[in-house]
């Protein structure tokens, strides 16, 4: 059973039925799912969740789908790791890595896509589609395969090889579009108006976006039913930042955690940081940019949820940080060498931003801090390829001794 009531416009609050709709026809505002929280709080307890499956479906009462069409390829309940080594380097005693790069298709996108696939089946769609900066297309293709649906994935030309192969293997129709993400997004918005497809991040967006709340739920549960002091979250469209916050607030509202004093920090790469710029210049509107960054998974110049990320930053007293491009691959290595976690470029942006937040005294040494690592490094190997050094030896003891200096 689902506790979903209706869709509401986030801007003018007009209500809509539960359908594949994402835009208010009066003001063009985004639509959001509304739930019967009273019923949820009468149903859900810490115990009922703890006894649930070890995946996102343990939080089903907070999700906009019933379990009838559940598609499970093992998404969610990813490790929350006490990052003692990196913490020691940065001067943080309670630094945790939420390692979401170990989801089935190796990014956090499996969370929203699992939910959207179930909803698409409920709406009787036969085709899943998406516009992607790379991670989403792998997830959509994987879930479509499991759900026996067709999939079409659109992406900007020039994406990393690992992301194209990591989607292609599941059998989608891959469509590389000449242009940047924002160009592809515009095209897909127009296509979604006329095709009877479930475009996960266009006409299915209200349901899709809810999936990212589960990151907030998991972190609170894994910390022993409490909200962290700080979250450092990478931002492309800005949706993830807002939805982690929504997850924490929902948990408080139904009494699962006591309070939320979390500061929601937002991280973007310097070469594509429209949300950071708007926040730091105290603007209420996002001014779009043409992305020029190696962090392709964050290269959205016209972020759909930017205005809401700005609100979340303000409400939670968070900070917005732009990571210098040259620090991204360095920080990928830093995380790998200290914590044994190999992240993609977005993770490098998060670690660089975390370091800056500590330097600027935004985080105290005892604060419980979560760095969200949302994608896997094997997908963006190109950016650290230049750092690879290895020794070539002959299969002889002598060659080993001559080449390798054992100290």
């Amino acid at each position, binding site marked *: 059973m689902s506790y979903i009531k209706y869709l509401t416009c986030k801007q003018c609050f007009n209500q809509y039925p539960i359908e594949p709709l994402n*835009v208010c026809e009066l003001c*063009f505002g985004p639509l959001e799912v509304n739930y019967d929280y009273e019923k949820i709080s009468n149903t859900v307890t810490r115990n009922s969740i703890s006894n649930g499956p070890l995946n996102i479906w343990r939080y089903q009462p907070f999700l906009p789908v019933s379990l009838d069409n559940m598609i499970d390829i093992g998404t969610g309940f990813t490790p929350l790791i006490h990052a003692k080594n990196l913490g020691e380097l940065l001067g943080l005693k309670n630094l945790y890595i939420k390692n979401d790069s170990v989801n089935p298709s190796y990014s956090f996108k499996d969370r929203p896509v699992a939910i959207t696939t179930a909803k698409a089946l409920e709406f009787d769609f036969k085709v899943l589609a*998406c516009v992607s900066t790379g*991670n989403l297309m792998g997830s959509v293709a994987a879930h479509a395969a499991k759900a026996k649906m067709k999939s079409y994935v659109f992406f900007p030309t020039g994406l990393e090889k690992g992301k194209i192969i990591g989607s292609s293997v599941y059998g989608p129709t891959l469509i590389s579009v000449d242009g940047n993400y924002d160009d592809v997004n*515009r095209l897909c*918005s127009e296509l979604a108006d006329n095709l009877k497809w479930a475009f996960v991040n266009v006409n299915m967006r209200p349901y899709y976006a809810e999936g990212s709340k589960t990151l907030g739920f998991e972190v609170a549960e894994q910390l022993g039913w409490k909200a962290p002091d700080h979250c450092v979250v990478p931002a*492309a469209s800005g949706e993830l930042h807002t939805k982690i916050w929504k997850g924490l607030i929902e948990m408080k509202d139904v009494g699962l955690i006591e309070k939320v004093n979390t500061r929601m920090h937002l991280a973007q790469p310097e070469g594509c940081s429209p949300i950071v710029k708007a926040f730091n210049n105290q603007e209420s*509107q996002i001014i779009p940019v043409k992305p020029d960054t190696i962090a392709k998974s964050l290269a959205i110049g016209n972020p*759909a949820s930017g205005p809401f990320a700005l609100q979340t930053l303000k409400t939670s007293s968070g900070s917005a940080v732009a990571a210098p491009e040259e620090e991204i691959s360095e920080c990928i290595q830093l995380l790998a060498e200290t914590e044994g976690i190999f992240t993609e470029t977005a993770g490098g942006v998060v670690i660089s931003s975390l370091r800056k937040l500590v330097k600027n005294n935004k985080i105290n040494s005892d604060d419980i801090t979560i760095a969200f690592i949302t994608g896997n490094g094997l997908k963006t190997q190109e950016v650290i390829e230049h750092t690879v050094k290895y020794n070539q030896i002959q299969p002889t003891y002598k060659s080993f001794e001559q080449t390798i200096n054992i100290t």
Partner: protein
Amino acid sequence: MSVTVRIPTPLRKITNGLDKISASGSSLSEIIKEIEKNFPGFQSRIYDENNQLRSFVNIYINGEDIRFLDGLESNTKSGDEVSIVPAVAGGN
């Protein structure tokens, strides 16, 4: 010859279900004025009370966001394609 304007679903109730409209004018604001003449109520759906484009509406001329051009005063010429796209669509 005129400009082709692609109409998104939320506006099709006003355009009698049309998903494409031809209009003429030398700037985007003129094009919108002309559509308003034929389909009253069109303008108020995409403009706010200060006659500015609503914050959740994006307009493109031949694929270029008008915020990178001259906004509503961007030039249009015969054969151009104008797209009206909800800002909240997409994003990853």
